[in-house]
């Protein structure tokens, strides 16, 4: 319990302060607070869903018998999600986390029927009185691994396995490419759309196709470790997604973007317990502890290490923004003016690619 609190590096103002206070009396006399989770993949994906489940486990560790968590995994984005969310609501959960973009409409619809239950939707843009949204600034992590890729790639070409061309994914592709091109101005990123968040066989096939086309750096916006395993087999480098995936590809795995939802989950469940829960939108980055970078592989050269560390420090200090102008899209139109930083508004609607991206 204490280890979680001391490990917490973010600050949510009153919420976080309240969370560090002793638990308010009386709660123990009540029935445990139900906390539900809807996952898009299996908890064993060792990627996106796994990290959310780590957050759920952190909640159990933090609150013990005061809460009761449950989850439904592998929920398809569509009407199945509506049924699954409604089931968690009817089962008496007081706060429900729906952890994929495609759960947005179902979450909003079910939330209308259960005004007293708090809903938390990850990565979406629709909110309501009882629906909050939260997301992580993954693009900050992309800028760090892009820097490493720029240094380490011999062919100057990365392969990117992407899910769907929504702003969050487009943002990651651009941040990665921009950072790599700062190191190597001729760097190119080839994208394959897998049209799924989780399908190990498809992800591995995409990785192999990209390697065949000359990519010697593989990165992904899908949830399994299959692409890393493919990279390991073919002797190229790769980056883990959502969690440290080095155990799947000890040689290929240069580093990983690690998601950590536990701090946010603890603060929100605490707020639900205290009756201070409010809808809102939180977008946390490296500085807030939402996004972390896994330890570098020994293969990462000292120059690449130093450059990646500098990017990370700059982002935390606020002196470096991965989307600093001038940025042009592929048609040559200026999207971010010279010297300006892209606003969150621009980022959250991003549907254009920077130079060097072949999507």
């Amino acid at each position, binding site marked *: 319990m204490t280890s979680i609190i001391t490990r917490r590096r973010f600050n949510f103002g009153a919420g976080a302060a309240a969370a560090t206070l002793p638990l308010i009396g009386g709660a123990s006399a009540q029935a445990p607070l139900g906390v539900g989770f809807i996952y898009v993949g299996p908890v064993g994906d060792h990627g996106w869903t796994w990290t959310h489940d780590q957050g759920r486990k952190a909640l159990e560790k933090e609150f013990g018998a005061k809460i009761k968590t449950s989850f439904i995994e592998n929920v398809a984005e569509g009407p199945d999600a509506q049924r699954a969310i409604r089931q968690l609501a009817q089962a008496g959960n007081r706060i429900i986390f729906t952890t994929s973009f495609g759960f947005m409409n179902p979450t909003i619809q079910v939330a209308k029927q259960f005004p007293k239950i708090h809903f938390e939707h990850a990565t979406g843009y629709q909110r309501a009185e009882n629906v909050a949204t939260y997301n992580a600034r993954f693009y900050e992590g992309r800028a760090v691994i892009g820097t490493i890729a720029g240094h380490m790639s011999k062919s100057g070409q990365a392969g990117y396995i992407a899910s*769907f061309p929504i702003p969050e994914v487009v943002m990651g592709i651009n941040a990665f490419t921009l950072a790599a091109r700062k190191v190597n101005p001729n760097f190119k990123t080839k994208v394959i759309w897998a049209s799924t968040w989780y399908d190990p066989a498809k992800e591995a096939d995409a990785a192999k196709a990209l390697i065949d086309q000359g990519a010697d750096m593989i990165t992904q916006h899908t949830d399994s470790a299959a692409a890393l395993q493919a990279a390991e087999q073919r002797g190229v480098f790769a980056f883990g997604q959502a969690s440290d995936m080095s155990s799947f590809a000890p040689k290929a795995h240069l580093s990983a973007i690690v998601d950590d939802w536990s701090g946010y989950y603890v603060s929100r469940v605490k707020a639900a317990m205290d009756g201070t829960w409010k809808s809102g939108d939180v977008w946390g980055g490296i500085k807030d502890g939402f996004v972390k970078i896994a330890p570098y592989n020994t293969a990462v050269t000292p120059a690449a290490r130093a450059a990646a560390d500098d990017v990370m420090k700059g982002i935390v200090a606020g002196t470096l923004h991965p989307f600093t102008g001038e940025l042009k899209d592929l048609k040559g139109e200026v999207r971010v003016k010279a010297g300006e930083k892209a606003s969150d508004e621009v980022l959250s609607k991003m549907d254009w690619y920077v130079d060097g991206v072949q999507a």
Partner: protein
Amino acid sequence: MLEWRRRREPSPAMLYASPLIAVVLTMLIGMIVFTAMGYDGFHAVRDIFLTPFLEPQRWADLGVKAAPLVIIALGLAIGFRANVWNIGAEGQYIMGAIAGTGVALATYDMTGWWILPAMALAGILGGMAWAAIPAFLRVKLQVSEILTSLMLTYVAVQGLYYLVRGPWKDPDGFNFPQTRMFTTDQTLPVMMEGSLVHLGIPVAVIIALVAWLLMEKTTAGYAVKVVGLAPAAARHGGFSADRVTWATLLASGGLAGLAGLFEAAGPFGQLTPQFPTGYGFTAIIVAFLGRLNPLGIVFGGIVLAATYVGGEIAQTTVRLPQAATGMFQALLLFVLLATDVLVRYRIGWKVRAA
């Protein structure tokens, strides 16, 4: 000692009892397997097979899940009776949804009662057109419809991906590959406030009754059965196997297309890449569980729907992994095929000659 004795005639009692025996055996085997794996096997099986029926708030979910399975399985069963093996209902289901969505997008700024029937008609025609390809290839070139219909499913999936990512992408959808949400005039009326229960559910029951009348009470139904059971006799009787192939494939394609349209204009309310959920394949289990009998299929659809809905309940109560749902469904088909032996054989004691 136990021995198998061949029955002189297939047992009519076992014909109907064996699906029930299969369900019970699946529950028992599941209970043993999951207990051995360290789960609470008893509760897992109870939550998967019984809880969905015991909690009234789940009935709506059962109906929503069963309706497409039943509609598709009704079509498939007609073909299976005639030895026409349409394995590609999933593809016809997708093409039906695509055709109906085409009408929806074309009528986006219009209103009127006629829009939804037009979409349904397009859905049926879309499914029929997709099933017409295997029918043509089988009748004209003797190509197995099992392979062609299955492979066309993947073509349909790619077609769907292309449309939702390209020409049909929602202009206000933040670049997410999906079509616009359908308007009220393009959506099936919701029959129960606060649920997904839609018009497709009563329609599924009506289609089942019509299919039963057609198969049991008309010459056309008789022709289908004769062609399946005794092709030579059918030829002597003047029934054309080619016509039956065409008719059954078109019927199963059309029904799968209608189910696809109902799903698109009902629970989904749009087309997305997640649209293909495997109903077309699961419906094969439903058809056999229902003994290829239209009324039995309604029962089979509800049982399969329960495994989906109950699988989610078991995840939250006993933390059974989601893969267990698929395992139960596969086990059910496996046990069902195994218990079929009881229709033709019975178990008896072997008496030793003294």
